[in-house]
């Protein structure tokens, strides 16, 4: 049996220099929190400056169920297995 050598998944939130709050930008793999910050910095802030970066192990995130009020779809879950994304409508895509 081969042991997994893939590092844990962390979700990444970045606040840009002109931003008011942290936005979810994606995820990184890392062995620990310190490394997650550095990997996130490498991956998500290469082209801008003055950032603030938050990372959190994906399995520690508790997310609301977007379909909670909706009778038709979606099993409710109180643990998040997949990435939670809290975008309403992505701004950039709206312009395209």
């Amino acid at each position, binding site marked *: 049996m081969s042991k997994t050598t893939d*590092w844990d998944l962390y979700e990444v939130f970045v606040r840009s220099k002109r931003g008011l709050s942290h936005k979810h930008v994606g995820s*990184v*793999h*890392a*062995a620990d929190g*310190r*490394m997650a910050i*550095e*990997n996130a910095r*490498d*991956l998500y802030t290469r082209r801008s400056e003055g950032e603030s970066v938050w990372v959190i192990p994906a399995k520690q995130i508790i997310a609301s169920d977007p379909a909670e009020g909706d009778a038709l779809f979606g099993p409710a879950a109180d643990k998040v297995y997949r990435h939670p994304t809290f975008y309403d409508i992505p701004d950039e895509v709206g312009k395209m």
Partner: protein
Amino acid sequence: MNAVYKTEDNPLFQYVLGLGDDALVLGQRWCEWLSKGPNLELDIASSNLALDLLGQAELFLGYAAELEGSGRSADDLAYLRDAHDFRNHWLVEQPNDDWGVTIARMAMFSLYHYHRLEGLTRSNDKFLSDVATKALKEVAYHRRFASEWTIRLGQGTKESHGRVQKGFNDLWRFVPELFETIDAEQKLADDGAIVASGDLRFAWEHDLDQVLEQASLVKPEGTGRLIGSRHNGHHSEHLGLLLCELQYLQRAYPTSAGAHW
């Protein structure tokens, strides 16, 4: 083969060449890790380190060319000198081997480079102090990266501990050269342009001791003499091979013969 330039000729040029060559050779070593790293995150980290160092190489070699005053460019210096005219420390030309050796090399060099740049921020040479101030931010990150990985490997598993310890053991003989101060360099220090390399040893050793302790690693003892000096154009065999790869295209298709790159 004797070096083309003597150490007494234009000492500041020689010194800045050393800064540029260290950055160029170590940058090239980090380029060699691209797509070969333990995972994608480390490929990205390696490329960041390479980009920082290559950027410094461009700046320092460009300034060296200016100081030389013969109309050469940074590229001319990088691509058209042979090994006996390079002034990098022997430590940075040592091969990557594995991640343990690479990290040991980076830890030892980045701590040195950090303190060297820190001293240069106070240089009375404006170009050097400006570039050093900018580069210091980058190298602060390099030393942290290397120190953290030293600790991770030192404490991680039996295998990683063995490999990084071997890295320090094998490379320790290149440490004395980092702190050697030849007369020409001492004069530059006395003139306020640089900090003498010898004066960096105390801070370097203090920092490294802390990292090694946290990493549960043993500081290697004693060193033999390095026979030969970079100031006279002497290097290990590795530099020639590295330059072969680095310089091949410009040697095969010289811009002086009309090639455009």
